[in-house]
């Protein structure tokens, strides 16, 4: 404790920034290695780094509440940012694609939603077998 006071907020923001920068660079490098013009997993790498960093700092008691606020703020402003993002989508071009674009775009999404429960089930069965035998009794009782 001691130094910084509410200036500590910037430490959280800086930590978040550093995680993102590393993640983005790694993602671009990964894309380059794979020979694709896209960032591969940059956001995912950044998130993992952030979680690991926060976990480490908390264990060492080095992360102050004020610094956490610097990260929490940006998480909290996520929805407004997404609204701003939706306000700059190229909606006109999307609709200009005509019937085919509309049909293809919507059908892909609807089929995706319908398939999610099946994919979810595949993994779940394996999980039950592995570790949680007592859970398999539960669903039967619930059905009755």
């Amino acid at each position, binding site marked *: 404790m001691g130094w910084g006071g509410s200036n500590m907020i910037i430490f959280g923001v800086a930590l978040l920034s550093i995680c993102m920068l590393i993640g983005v660079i790694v993602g671009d490098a990964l894309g380059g290695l794979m020979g694709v013009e896209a960032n591969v997993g940059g956001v995912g790498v950044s998130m993992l780094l952030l979680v690991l960093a926060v976990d480490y700092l908390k264990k060492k008691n080095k992360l102050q509440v004020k610094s956490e606020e610097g990260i929490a703020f940006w998480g909290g402003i996520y929805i407004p940012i997404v609204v*701003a993002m939706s306000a700059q989508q190229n*909606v006109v071009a999307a609709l200009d694609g005509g019937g085919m674009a509309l049909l293809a775009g*919507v059908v892909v999404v609807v089929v995706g939603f319908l398939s999610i429960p099946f994919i979810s089930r595949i993994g779940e069965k394996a999980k039950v077998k592995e570790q949680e035998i007592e859970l398999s009794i539960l669903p039967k009782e619930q059905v009755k």
Partner: protein
Amino acid sequence: MMNMIKEGLENNGLITAFAIIGIVMYIAYFLSDKLTKGRVHGSAIAIMFGLILAYIGGVNTGGEKGISDIQLFSGIGLMGGGMLRDFAIIATAFGANFSEVKKTGISGITALFFGVFYSFVIGVIIALCFGYRDPVALTTIGGGAVTYIVGPVSGTAIGASSDIIALSIAVGLIKSISVMILTPVFAKKIKLNNPRTAMIYGGVMGTTSGVAAGLAATDVKLVPYGAMTATFYTGLGCLLVPSILFLLTEIIF
């Protein structure tokens, strides 16, 4: 006087954006509460408003960046651009439980491969229905059905014409917008209320903006899990579509 106000707002674009988006969200939450008694999530309504604003902006300017092409609203472009969006997505990981991510790892990867493959196949089938027979065009449109980045990247790589590339972008944009609008509609039916399903959802849908907005309109707590898998989707699509999937399409047609 009007000019002075306009200049003041334009010179402080990002701040103007904060104010406008704040007001839009206030109205959206108000309507959600009063008209739908909270049944339609306020953020879902706000995102719809955003899309309507984007349409108005696009019609008025002929530009590609929705409302942010109007000078007065240019700050919305910065606020909702990729940089701050990714920054905020990463911030939502603060407090996420990453042992969930490890547990769902394999299902997440399965969902990713499945997501890219089935999107491509459906894109190709629909293109076939509309009379396209050329493997280059089919692959490009199939790529667009993966995401609006995969379409043009693949199309350029395999030499598609610019009108086909534009069409593939349109398919991807419609997909992204549909994910935004339909996620809160389907959320209950597919039990999108836990980290595991959110990861699978991110892997199946893949479009970053769609997943980002879809989960925002459903439950912000799920954002890091959906984003975790979705972040690999476009890269995987750019890898598979112009290579293996193009070769397969060429063999079949």
